[in-house]
């Protein structure tokens, strides 16, 4: 009996010891990432890193609202997604931990491993606040069968605004399919406006939308819908332009690498290609947006173990995990070394499209998708409204863009 009690006692102490050593780390991300992240966590983290159990928390509400709310209440998870789109706002709270010291001590990752533009994007006042997990940019997706059927050459990297508009007009075949699905969406329009020469703000800090470059871009961007050769996703009866493309209701859409997994899942035999956004004129400039999301850590992670939290971030951004995510077609990794991955040498349309998205990011004219102190919703909201009015013929380009400028100026002043 005594022996039994002794063994039992030792066992209990041992279990307790193990139990105490296991640290639970909370990782909150977009709910859409759930299948991928659960897969990655079970393969590379849980049961692999000793003493660490990472719990995935999918967030369905507005993510920025979630981060601001939990940071201010002191209940933020250990690892949060930081979208470049609002990174500056969140860093300004002073409650996000700079990662430079952890990185300096890390044998697995250093700043030099990252694609420079991605490291720079998350650097504020010389400090790195998030490690980019993946990135994206915009490309033209086109349906080869529809272009073949209408005898129109595919969109290409040599297209200008004028030749692209012409191709869309010729491939459009309603009600079977539209030439393109284009929404009044600032996140698609602004790269074209920047390419045409519109600055983010005027030199005096005022809204730039009343400048000729902005109006020329708005006139071109809305021309497709006004001419009836493109339709919004709502008019086609789907949720977003990518869905219109997958459903083969539009020959072209302007999206990023995020369109690739849904095509693979919902219409795997779709005969499609991808190319760069058109240039403003022959040999002229071309715009694009760089989208990226990184992993960040609050100043006081609830696990109380910032070292272990960083270790998890290290694993999630390690070459193995990034290669795995790349090959599953989910995202383009942020590590330089992976750019030579054999994945990019494949010739299937999914790998080719991924490669095009990746190459588009490196082209001159690509700017980070970020809005600084102005506030992305403020800036894009007025543009979305203006584009909607122009597309519906409720206002001229001049009226709508002047009004957008006036509205943003009011917000900037207030």
């Amino acid at each position: 009996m005594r022996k039994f009690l002794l063994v039992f006692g030792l066992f209990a102490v041992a279990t307790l010891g193990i139990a105490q050593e296991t640290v639970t780390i909370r990782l909150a991300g977009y709910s859409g990432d759930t299948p991928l992240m659960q897969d990655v966590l079970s393969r590379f983290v849980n049961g692999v890193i000793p003493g660490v159990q990472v719990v995935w928390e999918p967030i369905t509400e507005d993510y920025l609202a979630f981060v601001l709310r939990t940071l201010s209440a002191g209940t933020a998870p250990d690892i949060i997604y930081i979208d470049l789109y609002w990174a500056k706002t969140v860093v300004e709270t002073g409650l996000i931990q700079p990662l430079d010291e952890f990185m300096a001590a890390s044998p697995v990752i250093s700043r030099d491993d990252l694609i420079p533009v991605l490291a720079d994007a998350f650097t504020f006042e010389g400090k790195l606040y998030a490690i980019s997990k993946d990135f994206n940019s915009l490309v033209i997706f086109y349906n080869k069968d529809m272009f073949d059927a209408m005898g129109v050459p595919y969109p290409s990297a040599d297209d200008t605004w004028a030749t692209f508009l012409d191709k869309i007009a010729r491939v459009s075949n309603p009600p079977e399919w539209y030439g393109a699905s284009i929404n009044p969406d600032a996140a698609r329009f602004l790269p074209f406006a920047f390419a045409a020469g519109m600055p983010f703000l005027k030199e005096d800090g005022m809204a730039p939308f009343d400048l000729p470059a902005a109006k020329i871009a708005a006139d071109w961007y809305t021309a497709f819908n006004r001419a009836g050769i493109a339709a919004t996703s709502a008019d086609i009866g789907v949720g977003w332009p990518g869905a219109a493309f997958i459903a083969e209701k539009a020959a072209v859409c302007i999206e990023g690498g995020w369109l690739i997994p849904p095509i693979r899942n919902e219409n795997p035999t779709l005969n499609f290609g991808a190319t760069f956004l058109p240039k403003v004129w022959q040999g002229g400039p071309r715009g694009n947006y760089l989208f990226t999301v990184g992993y960040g850590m609050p100043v006081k992670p609830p696990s109380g173990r910032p070292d272990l939290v960083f270790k998890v971030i290290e694993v999630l951004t390690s070459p193995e995990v990034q290669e795995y995510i790349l090959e599953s077609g989910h995202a383009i990794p942020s590590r330089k070394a992976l750019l030579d991955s054999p994945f990019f040498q494949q010739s299937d349309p999914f790998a080719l499209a991924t490669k095009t998205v990746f190459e588009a990011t490196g082209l001159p004219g690509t700017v980070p998708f970020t809005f600084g102190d102005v506030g992305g919703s403020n800036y894009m909201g007025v543009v979305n409204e203006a584009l909607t009015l122009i597309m519906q013929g409720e206002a001229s380009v001049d009226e709508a863009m002047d009004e957008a400028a006036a509205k943003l100026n009011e917000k900037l002043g207030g």
Partner: protein
Amino acid sequence: MRRRSDWVSAFIFLLPLLFTLAIAFLYAFVRTVYFSFTDYNLFKVSQFVGFKNYLTLFKDSYFVLGLVHSLVYAAIVTATQTFLALLLAVVVNQRIRGLTFFRAAYYVPSIASSVAITTIFIWLVNRRGTVNWLLGLLVRYWPLMVTALIITALTQTIQVLWERRHGLPVKAWDPVLLLISLLVGSVTATILGRIGLIRPNPKVEVLIPWLTTRQTFLGIPLPLISIMILNIWTTTPTMMILFLAGLQDIPRELYEVADIDGATPWQKLRYVTVPALRPVMFLVITLGLIGTIQMFDQAAITAGIAPLESVITLAYYVYWAVFGAGTLPKVGMASAAALVLATLTLVVVLLQRKFGFSEKGWYS
């Protein structure tokens, strides 16, 4: 002594509720009042700024728009839904066949999730949605429809006159005769259409942008009108249930007396039902006003596609000031706006009680 112990036990039973009220309401309210006088963004130390937030609010064009929208919305939606709910309640209070089905069918929009309903509604009012499709049919076929209606009316008149001439006291809207008239009307119109005597209009595509527009009707933005229709449709059934409960309490004798006095159905509604329903009416109008002045969810969902200036309401303004701009939250402004909203709700409800329907029953 016994009284005191009663008091103590009552207090103990009330304690859980009082505790939640104190934390979730009183504490939150006091904090909101405090924040409304400060410059605060959730992260920096709050700074006292006096009435600056309130003054800034009334200079902010979006706040003023939200205020106007909320008031207009509350007035129109509350009035319409109260009127419709009363009518529906009176209808489903009759002893008619299939009553349970109608009661359930009318109630369904109220129990479905408001987010789901709003999403379905957005699909219905798309530029190429069902509503515009039906309008397209109406535009195309109205000559035939009008013809059918005229022939129906003519047939009905002839039938009624014929029956009365033969000594049968039929009513003008006799259902059996009406059925025959409708049949005659629609068949004749179809035949006239087929042989080409009456032509439908050329096919047109109705593309009214119900939500993504700045157009207004009588000064009210079209998207807001869409939300009004949606909200009336979903809230009316709840109010109908309240009226139904009230209707069951009205003594039957009152109607019998009215019948003896030779009252028409309208007079019974006007002079018996409505006065007897005063307490319920007060409840329905008050709940309606509070719900409509503080309308948030439909505005928030449609704001994703409709221009902000067309759908912004006070409650949405509060959210937008905190989380909507993509910048650090303007908690001071939002708190001030929230307090204006609370005060406005209280004032409107009190004014209604003073000048409209109060909770006092007619027989008290």
